[in-house]
């Protein structure tokens, strides 16, 4: 009888006084014990699982949302990064079919087509991108890179300048033109552009920019003005002479002695006593065929 009563009291307490401390304490302890046991039994393998592949993730996204232009574009980008422009092109074409009013889709399609050694197809896509958005500076930039790789430097520079005119706020265009101008020995144009960038956003200038600016000024005979710029380049990136020397060695191994010599020259402009660059330049200059 008493047992029955206590049982009833317990049920009563559970139903009507569940805030009883004894009951709560017991339940919490039981729950924690059960949890600890279950967790210990079902403990996952402590070895870290392999990372999800970004391509697999985007493919999964496409299975859920097959009409997502964004998923096609990003999947295409991953294939571009992996050096598979053909699969990238297929996804960019799907993105273009879903949303032909986005100039970026056309631009990326052009990029992939160029990677597939189809420059005509690339140009058609770039033209389409400019038809959708005539103000898209980035298309001219990519078109310029394409022409540059074909050796059509004058036309490439023309496209770079158009990109700069369309969007002067992207200072990377100005810096690119300035660097190419130094290569083509158009030092005044280069100096004017570097000056312009310094006035607008000095923090945009990196070690390479200061180096080229210094070289341009040096070529124009303004050594006193060039020196602090070269020092600034070295301060921003102390390992730049070593990096240039290594690049020069790579180019020399490929038989490109002229560009290799230019790299060694740049390394020596920053650190005139760089022993490796001195020796390599001497060797490179001997190898360059005399006109």
């Amino acid at each position, binding site marked *: 009888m008493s047992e029955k009563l206590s049982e009833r009291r317990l049920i009563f307490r*559970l139903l009507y006084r569940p805030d009883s401390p004894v009951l709560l304490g017991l339940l919490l302890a039981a729950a924690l014990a059960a949890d600890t046991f279950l*967790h210990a039994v079902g403990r996952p393998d402590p070895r870290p699982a392999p990372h999800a592949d970004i391509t697999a*993730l985007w493919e999964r996204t496409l299975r*859920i949302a097959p009409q*997502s232009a964004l*998923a096609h574009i990003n999947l295409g980008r991953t294939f571009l990064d992996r050096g598979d422009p053909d699969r990238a092109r297929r996804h960019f074409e799907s993105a273009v079919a879903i949303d032909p009013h986005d100039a970026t889709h056309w631009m990326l399609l052009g990029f992939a087509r160029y990677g597939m050694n189809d420059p005509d197809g690339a140009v058609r896509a770039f033209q389409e991108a400019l038809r959708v958005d005539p103000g898209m500076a980035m298309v001219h930039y990519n078109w310029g890179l394409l022409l540059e790789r074909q050796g059509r430097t004058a036309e490439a520079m023309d496209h770079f300048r158009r990109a700069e005119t369309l969007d002067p706020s*992207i200072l990377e265009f100005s810096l690119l033109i300035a660097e190419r101008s130094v290569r083509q020995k158009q030092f005044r144009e280069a100096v004017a552009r570097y000056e312009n960038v310094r006035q607008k956003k000095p923090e945009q200038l990196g070690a390479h920019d200061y180096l080229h600016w210094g070289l341009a000024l040096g070529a124009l005979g303004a050594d006193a003005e060039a020196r602090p710029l070269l020092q600034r380049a070295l301060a921003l990136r102390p390992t730049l002479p070593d990096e240039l020397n290594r690049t020069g060695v790579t180019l020399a191994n490929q038989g490109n002695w002229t560009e290799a010599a230019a790299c060694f020259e740049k390394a020596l402009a920053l650190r005139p006593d760089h022993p490796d660059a001195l020796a390599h330049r001497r060797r490179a200059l001997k190898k360059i065929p005399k006109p």
Partner: protein
Amino acid sequence: MGPAPTSPDSRRTPPPFRRPEHRFSRLLTLAPILFLALFALDNLRAPTLVHPEAYGRIVFYGTSAGRGLRGELEKIFDYRKGESYFFGEKIYRARLLNYAFDLLDAKSLRFLNAFAPYGARSASHFLLTALAVLSLFFAFKSLRPGLPASSAALLAAFPATFPQLLVQNGFYFRPAKILSFFTAAFLFLVWTKLRTTDFKRLLQDKKKFILWLISVGLLGLLTTADEQAIVMVAVFLLLMIAVSFRTRNFLPVLSFLLPALYFAVHTLFIDPWLAAKFAGLKLDGGYPNPLRLFTLAPGLLTAALSVSLYQLQAVFGDPLDSGRWALAALALALFLLLGRRVFENRRRTKNAEPLGDILRPPLALLACLFAAFYAMTVRHPPIVAWPDLTRGGYYYLPLALCFYLCFVHVLHRLGFLGKPANRVLLACVLILWAVGNFLAAASARQVIATGHLGAAVELQARMRKDLARPVDDLERAATSYPPGERLFLHWYRTHVGKTF
């Protein structure tokens, strides 16, 4: 006339002792402290991680422009850097407040790491979480006048244990969503304060009127935090319009209409002007219009629904993620017992509010928010397709808070919060859920570490080791990093130090 004479007896009488509301009322005071302690503890245990997209922004905002305060503030208007856009693409998102808090985060990362092992934490995460908890505290006090401060604190501090929020503890990405989280809390506060006030009474009280103006101004500013923030203001506005026809009180409508109008003016006129003046940018409105691409894909719709339901269960103990089924079962059992008590009480009450009337507004709010969430998935489907993103919590912070606010609102309307014993029982349930959430955050981090950020987690472990090396070794090691990480390594070593 002197003071009234008092009898010696009355002087000996002890002051009236106020009986505590309930034997275990202390639990109501301890629970919010426990919630905040869990939040702090999670911060201590969380390994910090910088999202790879954030490196460039940390360097940009963290480096001094050399033009004083003006130079630093001008960076806020450079939306291109703020969005870490793909070079040259046309993206414009009117998220000015987000950029301002991003600047604060980068500066605090730079300066605090120089003094303490602050790691890759986001200052705005802590600041806005604290502000949201504070807003919710005052909102719950207004929601049910006479609710003891301890109970309001209990309800307000619980969101600090959301797994969605805890997972963001050691994560540096961008403050847009935590700003939206605060926006949801602040909207709720404004609504609770205004629902019983009309225009006439507001104009009569000068202090109240000024507070109203400040609140509406702040809401206007918050609309520029993120798309989710403006969506929430719009959803609240729609709901208020629907309710105002019955209540004939148009003050809440006006209070949410003004910020929405400000957003339109800001996006069309103010932002382009600011960007042109301070960053030399010509805004083109190039951000794709989601309505143009809006499609009803069955797969995406079911995925969005499933992820939304996951976020709902994640708020309440998250047994699926933590695997702590017994804790969840106990919490559910206690909650059902609480429900039984309340519903019995409702049965005894003659003029109890119909259940339909109680459930209709929160369900309408959640339906609108789900529609907005679906629109977001159309624009960015990975948020429902990638397991690490669904567990990551970042995108769902505001939605999770709205679930919780609806839950508390329904509890209040059903009369759960009325009796002290009920509140104590609710505190027990919330404690169990908070412990479940705390455990779930740890397992969610494991999912993130094996997701699309897995490589970044490993790379950062390597970066930490490389940062401690001598400069020459660091320079050599840095060449093997991607450009963003390399830039950050150089910047961090130059401006902050060796430990990260």
